[in-house]
């Protein structure tokens, strides 16, 4: 499916736009406040006006008031503004991405979506097709594709520096601490998807990107009892390469990746944007620092937002178009469909602990 979609995506002619962009920031939660809006403000050159969209108008107004150097308005719904904007950044809960993006794309509005592009591959494909039909850009904020270290790792894998890839181990976990404003991750059963959707959107996308395609799913185990999972363990394989991914919202893991090839090993930290180590088959260790040596989330958001604005203004192509993230989303879909429950013997003891009140 991915290959077919890539071929139907139109080769857009870059036609630089002269008038300032009217941009909607849809969803005024924590990530809009901490990253998207500051990046928009720092890269406001092509922007003439920003409309902040959120059902909580007070929240939208609060964030609008903090912006300077560019005109702002607020709205409660994207429907109120979709005829008046050129571009939109969608930072709502992922289950709403497709619902919001589709009518915007149909109107030719360029869309930059927070990761994951959609909760399901079916939604992602529909969005991609709609973007292709309307010749609007559909971009996705897969920030890791711009980590200097991870880009360099991809290059080394493609060059065969460590030979044939035999195994990849990716371990990523932090106590969930996102300062969510709405609590959408957990509140009122609004989402039944957890760490696999959240951190998995990075991990699975990175693996697909590194390997140049989607590995085969071997197994997926989570600790969900109907709500969003806090732990997910995924095993995959591609040719002779065995891949294990451990994700957690509930404990701090090593936050590392390790790629073993027939001629060497690459190891790095998922939190180090620029550095990793390369060990060759003679055991010689090389500490690699991919330029720029220092970068942080602000730099990465600047990169992605500036690129999106340039793309919307007809001056660039997206860093990560929607089609690029599809293999990772398809894989995530497969994981959720195949997921079985992790063994948790300490929960099996519960019925013996206490009889229900009668």
């Amino acid at each position, binding site marked *: 499916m991915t290959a077919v979609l890539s071929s139907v995506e139109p080769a857009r002619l870059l036609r630089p736009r002269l008038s300032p962009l009217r941009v909607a920031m849809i969803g005024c939660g924590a990530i809009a406040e901490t990253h998207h809006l500051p990046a928009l403000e720092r890269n406001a050159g092509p922007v003439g006006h920003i409309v902040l969209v959120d059902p909580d108008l007070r929240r939208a107004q609060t964030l609008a008031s903090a912006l300077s150097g560019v005109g702002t308005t607020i709205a409660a719904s994207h429907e109120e503004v979709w005829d008046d904007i050129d571009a939109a950044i969608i930072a709502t809960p992922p289950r709403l991405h497709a619902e919001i993006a589709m009518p915007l794309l149909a109107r030719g509005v360029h869309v930059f979506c927070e990761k994951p592009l959609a909760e399901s591959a079916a939604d992602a494909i529909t969005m991609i097709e709609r973007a292709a039909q309307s010749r609007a850009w559909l971009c996705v904020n897969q920030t890791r594709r711009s980590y200097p270290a991870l880009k360099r790792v991809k290059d080394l894998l493609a060059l065969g520096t460590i030979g044939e890839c035999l195994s990849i181990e990716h371990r990523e976990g932090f106590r969930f601490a996102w300062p969510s404003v709405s*609590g959408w991750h957990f509140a009122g059963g609004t989402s039944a998807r957890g760490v696999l959707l959240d951190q998995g959107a990075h991990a699975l996308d990175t693996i697909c990107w590194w390997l140049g395609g989607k590995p085969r799913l071997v197994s997926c185990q989570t*600790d969900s009892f109907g709500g969003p999972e*806090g732990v997910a363990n995924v095993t995959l394989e591609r040719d002779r390469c065995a891949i294990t991914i451990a994700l957690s919202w509930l404990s701090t893991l090593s936050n590392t990746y390790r790629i073993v090839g027939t001629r060497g090993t690459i190891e790095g930290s998922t*939190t180090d944007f620029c550095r990793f180590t390369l060990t060759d088959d003679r055991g010689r260790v090389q500490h690699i620092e991919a330029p720029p040596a220092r970068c942080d989330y602000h730099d990465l958001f600047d990169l992605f937002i500036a690129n999106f604005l340039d793309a919307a203004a007809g001056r660039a192509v997206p860093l990560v178009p929607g089609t690029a993230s599809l293999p990772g989303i398809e894989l995530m879909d497969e994981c959720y469909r195949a997921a079985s429950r992790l063994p948790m013997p300490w929960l099996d003891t519960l019925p013996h602990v206490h009889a*229900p009140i009668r």
Partner: protein
Amino acid sequence: MLQSADRVILVTGGGGFIGNRFAEVIHLSRFARVRVGVRRWASAARAARFSIDIALCDVLDPRQIASAMQGVDAVVHCAVGDERVIVDGTRNVLDAAARNRVSRVLHISTAEVYGSNVNGRVDETRPCTTTGSPYANAKTQAEQLVWQYSSRGLPVTIFRPSIVYGPWSDQWTAALAERLRSGRWRQYARYGEGTCNLVYVDDLVAAALSSIRSDRAVGEAFNVGGADIVTWNEYFDRFNQAMGLPPLEVRSAQRTKAKSIAAGAVRTTAQLLLARHRERLRDLSERGGWVSEGMKGLKRWMNTTPSPSELDDLYSRRAIYDWSKAQRLLDYRPAFDLDRGLRLSVDWLRYAGLLN
């Protein structure tokens, strides 16, 4: 008396180790309907896996408590934090519970209310005392508030567990496992020969929930302990064995003390640096690289060396918290001996990715 599985129990501090466990047990055993009160949404990740009722309930915010308390029949008050959270938060919860005429408040306190300078058998008649520990002092003040509300007619029961361990315990399972796995942890001769009053978390939960069914528990305080009486050195050793690690070496009392004092000095210096240069240090740490790794290494070293207060006030304390009152009035019997509790703890460590 709470008698129906349709009743609603609010668990404050539902994002924490013990509060979460109450919520899981209440939900999975269908003891009642549970509402998990969390201070912020980020604390809800563990409870949310069960797709259960979660409410924002910062115990310092009376409006949030009032909202979370709607339709509630009983409260398990587990919220804990700094002195303000423990004292003012407890007052706020008791106040809302009284206004809502809940049928019971279970207040999860601590055996630390008896102070650290105790020896021998300590039962519930032992007076609570203020000590040098801000945590223990705050819990003592919170208990005093509970008794005030009790005297005004609010049905309350207090539980005073000691060392609560088991799956999800940061302090007595995860952190101790990290210490043991570091290869630097030891048995500490006479500094580890104090009594480790362990209770498996499910035993505490079972004791507390059973009290809801008992009118005799109203207005009472209960110690809750486990099935085994072991020393701290023995706990370290048996936990170490349960994880399949090489036997723990024994460090002499003299070396134990010397190392502890050295680590204490480093810890104090680090705290001073942190207090003065917090932003700069955080920045360095977040940037990754070798400086960050060095800082992590230092932190690991400090974390794997016992502090002087741990050795003097806890690991060498020879007190046994007597839970015969819970046995007598609540028919409490610990269901988890140390071997079983440790097996389950180790299973959890593997699930959590904290042990291979």
